[in-house]
């Protein structure tokens, strides 16, 4: 279980610290996407598409589409931020910038680099989730949304755990795709279906989608966030999201490590 112990060792934190330092140096550009994306999405899906949706039923009561989609956007931001960071960001650092190789010439080992990337995906996605949360608060004050925001900060730790799981999934593709051009394959075959066909933007009714999404941590994250922010059962979905994320970490981090050992070290 040395791969698990590496998550808690100082080298993994040093790797995360390096990524955080780069991110904060460009904070004015880094904070814009998470702030603007939910606004755009709410305008497009909420005000635009939502205008054509008469009403939605959430646990027996009607909710307007903007309010329905807002928690989904929070979960979707967590998912996309984590997975794109560990997919493109990590690939660029591994392949083009050779940042990993530079780190490996020090007391940092590959397990720390991998955990550093996973934890950074988790941290970055959580920071994005916080920014999206602030946008939702602003829209609530403006009267656009009707959410129950009392427990909003309690969702951030769940975002972190889920994002670490998504980060481990992104790293799997980083480990196996031959070039950056091949990233289209996991993006269109896995990431977008996983993101768009969960309960992010619409309620799941088709039995096949319902069955498939039982194993999708993003679906459970969306439903848990909805349960907390709109009102309804959340505990089951929250447990589902956390357990599936833990499972992703337990299965994928050792696998990522094995594949990346071959790819990066040639071993």
């Amino acid at each position: 279980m040395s791969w698990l112990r590496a998550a808690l060792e100082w080298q993994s934190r040093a790797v995360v610290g390096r990524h955080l330092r780069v991110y904060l140096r460009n904070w004015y550009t880094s904070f814009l996407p998470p702030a603007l994306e939910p606004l755009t999405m709410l305008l497009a899906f909420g005000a635009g598409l939502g205008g054509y949706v008469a009403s939605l039923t959430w646990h027996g009561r009607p909710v307007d589409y903007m309010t329905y989609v807002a928690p989904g956007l929070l979960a979707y931001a967590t998912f996309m931020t984590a997975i794109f960071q560990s997919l493109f960001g990590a690939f660029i650092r591994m392949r083009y910038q050779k940042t990993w190789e530079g780190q490996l010439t020090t007391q940092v080992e590959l397990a720390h680099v991998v955990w550093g990337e996973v934890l950074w995906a988790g941290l970055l996605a959580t920071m994005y989730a916080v920014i999206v949360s602030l946008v939702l608060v602003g829209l609530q004050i403006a009267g656009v949304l009707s959410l129950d925001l009392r427990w909003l900060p309690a969702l951030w730790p769940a975002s972190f755990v889920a994002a670490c799981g998504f980060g481990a999934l992104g790293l799997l593709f980083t480990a196996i795709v031959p070039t950056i051009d091949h990233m289209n394959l996991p993006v269109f075959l896995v990431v977008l279906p996983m993101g768009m066909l969960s309960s992010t933007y619409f309620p799941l009714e088709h039995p096949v989608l319902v069955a498939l999404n039982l194993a999708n941590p993003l679906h459970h994250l969306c439903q848990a966030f909805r349960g907390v922010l709109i009102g309804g059962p959340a505990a089951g979905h929250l447990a589902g999201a956390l357990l599936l994320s833990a499972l992703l970490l337990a299965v994928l981090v050792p696998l990522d490590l094995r594949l990346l050992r071959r790819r990066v070290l040639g071993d």
Partner: protein
Amino acid sequence: MPTLLDARGLVKHLGGRRVVDGVDLACESAQIVGLLGPNGAGKTTTLRMLYGFLRPDAGSIHVNGVELGRDLVRAKRAIGVCTQDDTFDGDFTVEQNLSIAAHYFRPRPTDLGRRVAELMERFDLVGYARDKPETLSGGYRRRLMIARALVHRPRLLFLDEPTTGLDPQARMGVWDLVDGLRSEGLGIILTTHYMDEAERLSDALAVLARGRVVARGTAKTVLGDLVGEHVVVIDAAQGAAIPGWLSARGRGEPASVLGVWHLPVSGEELAEFARAFPALRYEVRGPTLDDLFLKLSLQP
């Protein structure tokens, strides 16, 4: 005082092939050991095992008395690595590259600000402190790579082809720096394809071929053992009878470079050669490490 590097019986298989086959290597303080060999000889794999990138399938590596396999992190505290490719962090400036590298070591280097300033000064990087590393010339990139490998004050430095691609002036600049590091007591393992570099800098050489150390010692000893005392240089067009003369002595084709044969011989063989070919015009010179590489590359 333990030997800085003591590697014994290193074996490594990659892709089902035995790439390193029982290599022993040692390095003392204030010593430069040149690790030589043609492409595919196992140099890079050996080096990668020595600085902890790869785990050997068999054998042991002790760095400053600490066994790599038992306590890699502690052993790596004493190691500085300058890889063949530039692996500096492109998201940071030249100066920040040194300080960020120091964060990957525990215990942290003491008085880091002063250490970074000292290295910037010594490696003539002060004028580029706020520049991104990719804007530097090849020579200054190498300087940055070596400076970064030294930020935590290691005792053993690995230099993997440190002057590849540099112009002569930049190469000599790096040589001066490496020579200075040796005089300060650093142990250095150097791989290079430049024979003059290996001869000038190394106190001892280890020559690898097909994953084994085929010769070790000073440049002179290694050349004497593996190449011979003299090298006869002769235009191949004139020497139609030479392959037959070599074949009669159980030797294969001589190494040919641009239509010129380079034929290593002992003193006795040189005398026989002179008697056998009195009318030929040829040059006799001392052996170099280039001859050694040519010889090794001709061996099956």
